[in-house]
């Protein structure tokens, strides 16, 4: 809780609006999935949200919240690494960060060299992994299984 409050406070300070920060706006709701949905949806409808950000891991609650956001006319931006929820977010939100884009968002927004370097390293690793996958597929096609056996599943 204090970490979440600190992150929001830091965001308000960094854009030069410390006066708009109210720590009571960052609060615990519940750890029960659908009770949480009921709470969030109630807040959305009562307060007539203008913008919703859905960032992180989501399960069945995703669509329930985004459809309600849609119904109140909010602009919605989502980002998730939960593959099963991505279609729902794409359908109901104006912008969706798909999978790894969620992790790249901070680098994209503040353009810090350290974070951009991190993204570049991820791309190189992706290239490396894809090359190994392709090489493994080609070798396995010719029944050369050395590389496949070198990288066991578990």
């Amino acid at each position, binding site marked *: 809780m204090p970490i979440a409050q*600190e992150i929001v406070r830091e965001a308000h300070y960094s854009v030069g609006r410390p006066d708009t920060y109210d720590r009571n706006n960052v*609060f*615990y709701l519940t750890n029960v999935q659908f009770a949480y949905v*009921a709470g969030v949806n109630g807040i959305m409808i009562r307060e007539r949200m203008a913008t919703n950000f859905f960032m992180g891991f989501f399960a069945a609650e995703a669509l329930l919240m985004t459809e309600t956001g849609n119904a109140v006319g909010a602009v919605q931006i989502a980002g998730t690494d939960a593959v099963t929820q991505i279609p729902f977010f794409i359908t109901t939100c104006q912008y969706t960060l*798909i999978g790894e884009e*969620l992790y790249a968002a901070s680098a994209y927004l503040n353009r810090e060299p350290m974070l951009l370097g991190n993204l570049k390293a991820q791309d190189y690793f992706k290239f490396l992994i894809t090359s190994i996958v392709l090489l493994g597929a080609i070798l396995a096609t010719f029944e050369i299984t050395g590389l496949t056996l070198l990288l066991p599943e578990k």
Partner: protein
Amino acid sequence: MKKTIPLLIVILGGLIFVAWAFSPHYLIQEVFYNQFYLPWIYAASGFAMFLGVISLSMMHSNKIKRRAPKWQYSYLFFAGFIVTALAGFIGGTQKGSVLMWMFENMQMPMSATMFSLLAFYMASAAYKAFRARSPEATVLLVAAIVVMLAQVPLGVRISRHMPAISQWILDVPNLASKRGIALGVGLGSVATSLKILLGIERSYLGGGD
């Protein structure tokens, strides 16, 4: 100093869990995880819940004090909280107690109601997604129709190849894109974890010195 100690705790805690994930050693798996970490986490989770309850109570009492819009609902929170807590403290949590009755006859049906709403929301989302406004949306529409028809007897009546086509859609293009996303997510989460472990990402520590 205000940042250094929390940062060291995060780095040390992170490194211990990296060791736990990768090492099968008795010391880390049994002594650290089962004998030390799990009992502590059970003890600490009660305090975490207590913090959550304080946070929620403060938010609702502030709403009542400030006469914020719809502040009357905040009394419902306090009423629900007090009644549930009393039922638990006085009647216990065993089967047949008032608390369990409230759980089975109030909370469960309400959760089930919320979950069942998902079916209607899915229909509405599907309508939005399946409007063939572009070539990509048309491909999506056709693929969805094939996969859905293959799940019901009518699909097999239309064509006996329907289940095989549906399975191919799920196993090849669908799985390929899912694995592509999973690959990116895996690398992204490793990079983010490393940023936190190495102290590059510190926004959770706040802005003070």
